[in-house]
């Protein structure tokens, strides 16, 4: 996304946008720019985007007008999901049937040509699912086709999210004319500069320093491997938060307010809070369209506390990619949420029955446990994480390093909570800061930058 195409189209359409008198024409311009952007990146993707948009808009119309729209809704969901499965997961599934074939010899064998994954498909499919479901739940009106097309293809959020809802974007697009405000330009460019800084300066350089440890963990002390693990946790955050900032900032330049995607996730005191702060647009989607609906299927405690979180998070994992490491990562978080809920219930019952609260000093463990849990999760998520995991956990030094880092985290946790109360006054941003930030990004631009981690979704 940090490319000539993106910033080129951004600059040109920005100038034209504010020159146009009415929002109607501006939307047209944005739509044209977005479609151009997609076309420039990959011709095939444009066709997929247009096809999906036509399909979903049609289904949306049917759902809106029908009294009993259950079938239309289901059909729409199945339609968009099929396209995602077709492009993204067919290879994976073929691989599974392939290995099963060696055992069963009964399943048909088919070779799947390597299909190039259309850009942004994972994001657009989720947007469309939310659109169709919101129409069914009578939360939003289908709107006109052009607005929906813009929503589907808006180039500022096309490649990397946030996964905005039509309900929030549509009113902005429908207004007769978004007023030009200098603050929009300032805040937008500020956000972009911040995003570039997070990605190019922090994430890429951390990635550079820990890359070799991930490539050849056995050549390093297990303690360094633990450091590389935490380093990756920080890297992936700044990488993705940086891209989100660029997306949100670019949208703001057009006066469009898009939802935030990260809210200091690593400061979360428990795993439930973590998921309200990490990749917020995705976790909100999972919550609204998977977690809640699944929970309604049965009121059994086992289902609600055991199966639902694990299934929901497993799907969240699989969305990232057709690989078992993502699935495992999802299940890891699902189990974490389950355990956390059980713990909460245990606390409540304890108070009810014995009138006793848990030892207050145990609260100091909350943040370190959460951070450690999330960091360990990245061992599964990252490619080639298994050798590092082995190197850490199959050696005495590694286990010791984990223990020591946990103790260190307790210490850091207390320091953070002490500092948070002090840093209440926010730094006043000056426009010059944006320029200097961009300058730093320029100097620190790394030719060896690692690819955007969330790009291939």
């Amino acid at each position, binding site marked *: 996304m940090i490319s000539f195409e993106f910033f080129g189209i951004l600059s040109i359409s920005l100038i034209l946008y504010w020159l146009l008198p009415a929002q109607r024409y501006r939307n047209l311009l944005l739509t044209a720019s977005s479609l151009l952007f997609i076309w420039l990146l990959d011709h095939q993707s444009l066709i997929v985007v247009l096809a999906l948009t036509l399909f979903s808009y049609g289904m949306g119309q049917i759902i809106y007008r029908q009294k009993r729209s259950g079938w239309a809704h289901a059909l729409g969901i199945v339609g968009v999901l099929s396209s995602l499965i077709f492009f993204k997961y067919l290879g994976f599934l073929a691989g599974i049937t392939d290995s099963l074939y060696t055992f069963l010899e009964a399943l048909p064998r088919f070779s799947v040509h390597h299909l190039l994954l259309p850009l942004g498909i994972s994001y657009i499919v989720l947007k469309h699912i939310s659109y169709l479901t919101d129409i069914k739940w009578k939360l939003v009106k289908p709107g006109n086709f052009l607005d929906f097309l813009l929503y589907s293809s808006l180039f500022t959020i096309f490649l990397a999210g946030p996964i905005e809802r039509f309900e929030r974007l549509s009113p902005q697009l429908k207004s007769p004319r978004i007023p030009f405000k200098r603050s929009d330009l300032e805040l937008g460019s500020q956000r972009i500069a911040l995003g570039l800084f997070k990605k190019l300066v922090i994430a890429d350089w951390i990635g*550079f320093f820990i890359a070799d440890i991930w490539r050849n963990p056995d050549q390093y002390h297990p303690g360094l491997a633990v450091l590389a693990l935490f380093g990756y946790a920080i890297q992936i955050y700044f990488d993705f938060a940086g891209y989100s900032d660029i997306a949100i900032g670019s949208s703001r330049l057009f006066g469009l307010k898009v939802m935030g995607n990260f809210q200091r996730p690593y400061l979360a005191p428990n795993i439930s809070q973590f998921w309200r702060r990490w990749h917020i647009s995705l976790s909100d989607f999972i919550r609204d369209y998977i977690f809640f609906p699944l929970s309604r299927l049965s009121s059994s405690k086992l289902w609600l506390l055991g199966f639902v979180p694990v299934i929901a998070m497993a799907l969240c994992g699989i969305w990232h990619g057709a690989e078992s490491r993502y699935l495992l990562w999802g299940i890891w978080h699902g189990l974490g949420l389950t355990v956390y809920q059980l713990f909460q219930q245990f606390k409540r019952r304890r108070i009810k029955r014995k009138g006793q609260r848990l030892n207050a000093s145990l609260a100091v463990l909350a943040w370190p446990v959460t951070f450690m849990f999330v960091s360990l999760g990245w061992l599964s998520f990252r490619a080639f994480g298994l050798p590092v995991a082995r190197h850490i956990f199959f050696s005495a030094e590694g286990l010791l390093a984990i223990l020591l880092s946990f103790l260190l985290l307790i210490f850091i946790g207390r320091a953070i909570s002490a500092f948070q109360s002090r840093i209440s006054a926010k730094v006043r941003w000056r426009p010059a800061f944006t*320029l200097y930030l961009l*300058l730093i990004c*320029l*100097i*620190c*631009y*790394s*030719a*060896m930058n690692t690819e955007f981690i969330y790009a291939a979704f």
Partner: protein
Amino acid sequence: MRLFKQLLLFLFVMLVLGLASIAIRAWINKEKAALTICPPDTKTLILGDSHARTALNPEFIRASFSSAQKAEELEYSYYKLKQALNTTNSLENIILTVSYFNFSSPVDNEAEMMKRYHRIIDESLYQDKAAYKEYSAAIRFRHLIDHKLPDYLPFGLLNSIIETWAEPMFVGGYELRSGSTIGQRRALDGAIQRHYYHGNSLRPISPLRTAYFNKIVKLCQQKKVRLWVINTPLHLDYRAELPPQTVSHYQKIMTQGEQELILPNGQEPQEKDQADFIYLDYSYLYLPDAYFFDYDHLNSEGASFFSQIIDRLVNRN
């Protein structure tokens, strides 16, 4: 007034940065010219890709140093060789492994490769790539960053500094492989696919790579070092899958030199006066399965055996 002061400050910062950038880049260029590929007294330099990495063990070849790097292609070996010849005076022999697929056109990964070698390649490679139509958007970007930006622009300066300080990524060396994976048919199919095909079609011959091979030959002639071109041993199952077109093109290039040597058992090669390069085709050398790590790479036993053969040839004085 305040805005004016801020502007002044900004211009001042830009000026300082610009001057620092010029100075730092001058330092980087100096270091670049002095970059050594091999230690000072090296007589024999081993170049090539993973075939050289696994088949030639410098321990068995007197006064040698291996700078073979995984997936290194001929055009990059050329620049590495140039740099080595400029900075090391003791070199007498260059051993370059060239396998049947080294003349095939690049499939992808080009921008990655350029990242690795960008410190030693110069503008002419980009011009050649453009001329031979192997010039993608990613390469254009690299060309822009590495050669077309003015010195006073501090773009990517931090990266250049760290690169210059740190160990170059492209130096390479001998890679010890143990064991043997002969028998895993799928690996063989995968390797053949990767080396010779792009999807369902044969990878076309790259005129650029052919040209750079000839450049290597000329460079060695010019610098008066002996060039030994070696086609490393291949397992017979791999050889059976070689596409005939690619093989015949390869053989045409290799026999263009004054001399073509295939070493039967025990015979010593004859050196003519006007040899361009000495070509040793060991791809048909029969070696037991236990010497192969996979279908086109030797393991450590194979390497010690093979390196001793080469040592006897190269250092027979």
